[in-house]
């Protein structure tokens, strides 16, 4: 984050990439906490985005998300990242139960010509805060995850991206006939991030 430009309202591609990848790191932590994928006691509170955010203390998850976000920011800077999906699956059956979509639109002009844009940190932070609040409140409508779950992160990149050493190609891990809820989006003027959660239809009431 040291790379972020000093002047307050100017935002560069690097800075934007840092904001987005950092956002994803916090969002992933928040989802893992709120959806109970990892035990509550393995999270600690930190102040971020004007909220108290929870970060995992589980070393393996920490390093996973850490290396993930650093790779993401690399792709974001190159404008090659189209989407990030956090998938929550049943541990027993590997059935996909939830997909958290973060759709990214990159301003091509910034990538190609290296120009910068103007948007205040404060404004971006406010937008991110709204998404974080929505993630935290999502448990009210998402179906209960009543079995042990695992998560995975998928990155949708352009085809011309060379696959990094630690990455493999994956299928989309889609959900059949999902329910979808669109959440807020935020825009750094360089990267626009749309958030959407899709989940397995809970068919209790239809029976």
């Amino acid at each position, binding site marked *: 984050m040291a790379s972020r430009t000093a002047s307050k309202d100017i935002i560069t591609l690097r800075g934007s990439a840092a904001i987005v990848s950092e956002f994803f790191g916090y969002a992933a932590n928040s989802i893992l906490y709120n959806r109970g994928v990892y*035990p509550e006691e393995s999270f600690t509170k930190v102040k971020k985005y004007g909220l108290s955010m929870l970060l995992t203390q589980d070393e393996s998850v920490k390093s996973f998300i850490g290396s993930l976000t650093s790779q993401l920011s690399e792709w974001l800077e190159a404008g090659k990242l189209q989407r990030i999906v956090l998938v929550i699956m049943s*541990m027993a059956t590997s059935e996909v139960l939830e997909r958290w979509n973060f759709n990214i639109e990159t301003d091509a002009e910034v990538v190609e010509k290296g120009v910068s844009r103007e948007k205040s940190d404060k404004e971006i932070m406010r937008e991110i805060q709204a998404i974080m609040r929505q993630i935290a409140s999502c448990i009210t409508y998402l179906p*209960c995850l009543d079995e042990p779950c695992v998560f995975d992160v998928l*990155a949708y990149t352009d085809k011309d991206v060379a696959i990094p050493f630690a990455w493999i190609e994956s299928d989309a891990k889609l959900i059949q006939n999902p329910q979808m809820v669109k959440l807020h989006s935020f825009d750094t003027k360089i990267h626009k991030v749309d958030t959407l959660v899709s989940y*397995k239809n809970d068919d209790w009431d239809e029976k």
Partner: protein
Amino acid sequence: MDAGSFSSCISSEKARPASRHPLREGGSRPYMPSLLSSSKDFSSRQSGGDRFIPDRSAMDFDMAYYLLTERRKEKENAAAASPSKGTYRRLLAKNLLNNRTRILAFKSKPQAPAEGILQETHSNAASHPSKSAKPQRHIPQSAERILDAPDLVDDYYLNLLDWGSSNVLSIALGNTVHLWDASDGSTSELFTVDEDVGPVTSVSWAPDGRHIAAGLNSSDIQLWDSSSGNLLRTLRGVHGSRVGSLAWNNNILTTGGMDGKIVNNDVRVRSHIVQTYRGHQREVCGLKWSGSGQQLASGGNDNLLHIWDLSMASSNSSPGQNQWLYKLEDHMATVKALAWCPFQSNLLASGGGSGDRCIKFWNTRTGVRLNSVDTGSQVCSLLWNKNERELLSSHGSTQNQLTLWKYPSMVKIAELTGHTSRVLFMVQSPNGRTVASLAGDETLRFWNVFGTPEAPKPAAKTASTGPFSSFSHIR
């Protein structure tokens, strides 16, 4: 998408096999599978498939299969799809969808979560029951306790076991009626009848949990006080032959005999015979009053199941003949196992003998058969779970098992084996938790099959649990 872009894509692919799909097709809009509705998805795949046919002839079969299955799956409940099919379809989708996006996953997955998650859900289920669905209860596969029952008369047509409201079991073994107090496990001998009137062919606790009625081979019926151990009364001349079935309805003791008669006896009055139900041609071996006490179900050796109405009987002034409400002739063998549903009035389950092997469900208000399930074995007795929508049946050869069924789906939840001969009788403890079964192998076994009753329970929450939860360790 035109043919040109495709062929150029393919040729360049051949030229540079190392980088997989070097060309970006079409416009800048990325392909987004999950965001598109399935029909849109489908159409784009279809056009892609047509394009590929001339170039890759081997692929059209896969494509066709994929499209066919995909279409059908959309109609079906997604949950029904098997995981292997799902994987296959995903792989097909991946291979066939020549989109412009590469989906990448980070290889080094966090390893620790496996344990962490498991612990988490355990603690979660314990501390936040609202967050997790009700775990499937653990059903012990073996008997909790086994007691010896020597000299048991191995006769399908008798009813030699009952569990009273005072939590005491009564068992008739030969000429003797034994008591087993379930609260402290103590046994006692209540009475032994004389050789010439015995053996005891049926026992039944009165609703007060104190008095016991016993039907005898001689056609007499005896009433005993279990607390004092005294014989209170002998009802004579009710039947012409042995009394194999008994059922209480408040102060009315209904008796079913080998003579095919069913008699209501008011045990308080001197001339005790109140009504006689005639309908069976042969021995009456199953006799149960409904929970409301309004309807009586009787099953006999003549393969008949009758439903009798109490109010109809009482409105009939002459205490001689009473017509049945329904005569149900669907069973192909003796109807002995009868059980009234505790959570749905007018629902009766009946089980047939070795020539029938079916459990049938009836609406006794209308006389309509609701369901019939072939169990593959003689049905000796039936019990409803008071706490869950489940039915327990006990069987004869070849397994001599107890089978727990989900109602109304009639999915087998558990099979409890251990008895080495047909499980003739089953009774349920007053709290509905434990089941005692008495079999021809002269053992009395106790099963903790129905689980503990839970007071506040949300609506049925079992179907969503995964395959692992049947081996659940969560209480």
